[in-house]
């Protein structure tokens, strides 16, 4: 079995978030991880098109807009990853026959884009005041060619990596809600990445907590 040496690379880039920065959406947030930044806007619960109506729960639509050009296959797959995570955490049955729209606009991609999308989505959903069974966050891990695990990789680290994994982790039990992987890796490596992601998720949830506390505090 390959022993993973916990490297110095197991760190998260500086991250930041601003909520309620757009006036039109019901909830909005922009999440920054290093240079990667994503803006998210949520509309809803609102009326739904008859063709998309689901009788016992809300219809969630996720749209990802790239920075350059029109949305393509890559964006579709990201949309699906985010939608499935949100559907798992949102209490959609509270709003039957209504629509929720989550729009993600990529502002800059410098690696770990999907995890940044997930974090921005969660912050926006929180800002919109939608009921959720748990919060979620995204963590990206890259395995370099030497077998080193790097969390929150930059674009250059992503490019050099042998495998890239993104996990959505819930806040209640730190379980994996969604995973999206690329490249080849062993079961051990996968487990190690999950374990590290769970550890890293604690940091992000602490950040969520801090930002909410700050928001509802009376002074800065």
């Amino acid at each position: 079995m390959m022993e993973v040496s916990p490297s110095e690379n197991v760190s998260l880039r500086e991250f930041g978030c601003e909520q309620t920065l757009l006036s039109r959406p019901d909830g909005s947030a922009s999440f920054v991880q290093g240079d990667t930044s994503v803006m998210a806007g949520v509309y809803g619960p609102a009326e739904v098109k008859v063709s998309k109506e689901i009788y016992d729960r809300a219809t969630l639509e996720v749209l990802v807009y790239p920075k350059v050009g029109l949305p393509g296959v890559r964006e579709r797959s990201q949309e699906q990853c985010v939608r499935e995570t949100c559907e798992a955490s949102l209490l959609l049955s509270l709003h039957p026959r209504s629509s929720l729209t989550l729009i993600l606009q990529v502002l800059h991609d410098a690696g770990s884009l999907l995890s940044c999308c997930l974090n921005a989505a969660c912050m926006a959903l929180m800002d919109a005041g939608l009921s959720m069974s748990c919060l979620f966050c995204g963590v990206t891990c890259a395995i370099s060619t030497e077998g080193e695990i790097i969390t929150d990789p930059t674009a250059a680290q992503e490019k050099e990596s042998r495998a890239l994994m993104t996990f959505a982790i819930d806040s209640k039990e730190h379980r994996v809600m969604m995973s999206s992987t690329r490249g080849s890796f062993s079961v051990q490596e996968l487990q190690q990445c999950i374990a590290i992601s769970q550890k890293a998720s604690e940091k992000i949830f602490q950040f969520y907590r801090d930002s909410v506390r700050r928001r509802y505090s009376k002074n800065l």
Partner: protein
Amino acid sequence: MKDTPLSNCERDFLLKAIEEKKRLDGRQTYDYRKIKITFGSDYGCCFVDLGQTRVMAQVSCELVTPKESRPNEGIMFFNLELSPMASPAFEQGRQSELSVKLNRQLERCLRNSKCIDTESLCVVSGEKVWQIRVDVHTLNNDGNLMDAASVAAISALCHFRRPDVGIQGEEVTVYSPEERDPIPLSIYHMPISVSLAFFQQGTYLLVDPCEREERVMDGLLMIAMNKHREICSIQSSGGIMLLKEQVMRCSKIASVKVSEITDLINKALLNDKTARKAGGRCGFAESIPQERITALKTDQTSVEMTGVGETVSSIVQTAEAPPQKVPSPLLPVPGVGQVGEGMRNTWGVEEEEDGDSSGGDSGEEAVKMEEEQHKEDKSRKVDVVEILDSEEEEEEEEVVILYPETTEKAKNKGSSSGQKGAATSRKQQKK
């Protein structure tokens, strides 16, 4: 999703206020909202805040073959995207009337005014030119998207740097930013659009209408002008009749506003340049305000290493247990799927033995029989469709071997193990 409707009393209130020369946000008639221009960390990325209205522009470039009619001119491409994030009324993937109008106005403002030297974008005449693509994304619509988009687009174009190219004979090399400094576009002038809204059939005029004002306005005049007071495009919409004097007055207002905005853009560009030169961090990440309670930022944090090693090992150990309990699914022969979970597929097992030792007659024959039946069912089905008049059994078999093997295989390759199994057994029979 539909936009929230505007009630009659709101409409009456707004119009009454405009008559009294008052605006909801406390501005004067000719005042612009606060404009904030920020640049992203990569070249050609610009955010513009016009009050609450927010747009982002990103410029990109690629080498393409030029149009045949203009072999030594680069291509400019503008795309204004009305993202549903900006307003619930905007729908994804649908070209609304507003989107067409804004796209056209942006093109007329920036491309048709020839503000960018397209000839300098030529690399090899008739073969390779730069295509400059400007994507404008609307993030929040609080009225006057056009002005915000035009400011964002021209600022992004000024900020943009394209990679340097070298030509040796026939070869064209594109240098990365590390090898050679990227080159800015040559821009002759900066056209900026100024929107003026008219109310009560042109009696009242407001500069930079907000979203509420846009809803109650009768007509809109968009003037694109540069700081040399040259009009680049002018468009009146809404079907109001304007007097000559009114248009002249509007153009005078526009010229004042344009010179103000141009100064602001230049200042923002200069600030960004000095920030970049100083080597400090610049970009969107730095523009998150620190003093708001809705914003929070942390420094780079390392994930606590002490716990990780132990948790990793413990989780790996516990994670290794499950595969021992549950028999791992077998892949008997490459390309053969297994039906069911954790159960050994008898078909697959037989096939595997088939490949390994080519013996095991007793068991194999039973399977063969099954498969034959399968095949015959299939052949009959095929037969009914394909050949109606053939009734002889032998002929039928002939058809099956020649025809469906190619078509069925092509149609659903390896989608079901049954078919494949049937095909292989058929081959054996032939032998």
